[in-house]
């Protein structure tokens, strides 16, 4: 994926790859994200790679933070509050 694809838009593959996580995290400016988007529309090499990374990130993010119940902790905290 390090080759420069012909006709792949304003930025070469290296540049698109460099911005990959920032792009997927929504951290790029509109212009910079647009350059990546144009590149992905045209680059047959980068698109599947970005897609794979997006699936990976979506899966990790879908975890979020499930609440965890602990009755012991609740008793402990109520006691600590009583003592304050």
């Amino acid at each position, binding site marked *: 994926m390090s080759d420069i694809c012909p006709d792949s838009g304003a930025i070469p593959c290296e540049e698109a790859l460099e911005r990959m996580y920032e792009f997927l995290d929504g951290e790029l400016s509109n212009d910079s994200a647009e350059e990546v988007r144009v590149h992905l529309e045209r680059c047959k090499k980068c698109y599947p790679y970005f897609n794979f990374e997006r699936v*990976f990130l979506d899966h990790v993010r879908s*975890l979020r933070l499930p*609440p965890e119940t602990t009755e012991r902790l609740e008793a402990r905290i109520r006691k600590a509050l009583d003592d304050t």
Partner: protein
Amino acid sequence: MTEDADKRQQFETEALVHMDALYGLALRLTGGDAARSEDLVQDSLLKAFRAWDDFRLGTNCRAWLMTILRNTFINEFRSAQRRPTSVEYDEVADRSVFAEVSSVDPEGNFFERLIDKEVIAAVDALPDDFRIPIVLSDLEGLSYQEISEIMEIPVGTVKSRLFRARKRLQRKLYEYAVEMGYLS
């Protein structure tokens, strides 16, 4: 009701109801350390109780408590670090697994076959410097700027830590999936 009892009652209704969510965050920040997580939740809630008069009712109490817990954790983490850790550069671990799976599962369907428990175990097992940015970014949804402020590291460092952390996590999940036959 006395003023103290009133305050306690209000704290119970507004703040204590978020205890499970706080414990969930504490467990992921500490990498699954139950004892440390309980201490962290207790310390954070006591801090919140002491500062209760500063909390404005009607604002987001859960977010306020999560911030207190996050800051408490990072402060402890930072003071326990005698010197800055440097996580070793590892060429294989830092590479995407895409090249390895592109012929069998280019769309990463194997990720869907992993259950939450397996992913959580893999996140918990990451070294602190890698786990914390992942928890803050991917599980809590914070921006690079917010993580940079909380961890007191430059945005560029957040970016590179996240990059390497995700590659390591991805590789762990991939190795696990291979072991379990999810890729066959």
